[in-house]
């Protein structure tokens, strides 16, 4: 549940980008970091290996502005996508208010996407969270690649979007769909907060 400070009228939400290795989670955060004015974001923290693969998490705090009289902040996290790092993925997922599942649209990565999506459900369930109850947005990344290499958004919807959650085609490297994805998830998270107020 987002943290709400009624005294200083602040809301802080934790949003996690999840998905298989090299699907573009960190690229999403890098694009946001590059586009948002400096006074509205903190430094991007990246705990990465020497070859720039995410080891623990990337973290980017954003100050959205005032919504309904509350200064609203988002904490954007990524998880390490490699199968090997499931223990750290579980840790980063703790307390998530919403998840973006980044799908690598390349046909050859289909099984990796599926495995990561199942892993997300398992890790949430371990924390007592039913994925059906959590704000979730799907992002079909790398849609800029040649059509013969990728699956189309309708095909990916058929495979992954059985809950009919918002889904967005994206090219995170150049920014297409990044904003729309973040907008969709923040809307869902705040909508949930509006309908299920926190007890303090």
């Amino acid at each position, binding site marked *: 549940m987002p943290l709400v400070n009624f005294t200083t009228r602040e809301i802080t939400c934790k949003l996690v980008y999840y998905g298989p290795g090299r699907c573009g989670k960190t690229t999403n955060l890098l694009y946001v970091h590059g586009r948002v004015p400096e006074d509205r974001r*903190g430094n991007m923290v990246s705990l990465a290996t020497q070859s720039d693969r995410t080891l*623990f998490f990337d973290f980017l*705090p954003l100050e959205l502005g005032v919504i309904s009289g509350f200064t609203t902040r988002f904490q954007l996290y990524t998880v390490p996508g490699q199968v090997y790092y499931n223990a750290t993925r*579980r840790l980063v997922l703790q307390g998530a208010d919403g998840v973006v599942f980044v799908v690598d649209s390349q046909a050859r990565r289909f099984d990796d996407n599926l495995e990561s999506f199942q892993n997300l459900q398992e890790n949430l369930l371990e924390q007592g969270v039913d994925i059906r109850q959590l704000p979730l947005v799907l992002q079909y990344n790398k849609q800029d690649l040649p059509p013969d290499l990728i699956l189309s958004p309708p095909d990916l919807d058929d495979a992954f979007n059985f809950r009919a959650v918002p889904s967005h085609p994206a090219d995170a490297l150049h920014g297409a769909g990044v*904003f729309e994805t973040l907008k969709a998830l923040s809307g869902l998270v705040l909508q949930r907060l*509006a309908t299920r107020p926190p*007890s303090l």
Partner: protein
Amino acid sequence: MRALEAWVEEPLTTFLSESAARVTLLMTSSGQVVAQHGFTRALDVMSAAALGAGIMASTFELARVMGSRPLGAVVHHGSSVGVYLAAFETPRGRWLGLVVFGGETSLGLVQLFFARLAADLANAAPTAEPPRQVLAEDFEAELNSSLRALFGR
């Protein structure tokens, strides 16, 4: 000092004056900031909280994997400052404290007064209040406009 809830302020003020800590950050185990003293920028506080929560989460997990009892605290000692990071239970769940201290105090004093802070917070925590309405029904227009402004669209 900034605290999410007023009842945190008195125990934290006492801790700060007794321990002579330079920076103190209290957070939930998922890295949400509850109170802080010593930071000047809210966004930096969030980064410190994310890192502190990550360290403690991995420490707990490491202990579990090793079949050891949970390690309740981690200490980093540098040449000029030290960092004490510890978990404690409150009626609001497990919280974490991150304390940065210098040569004007010692690890022993920080540990001593931190244990008292944890006990004081556990005693001071009020029972949970009923849910309160946060957002107005028309928040989405404001959200969209804020996001557009943020992304320059």
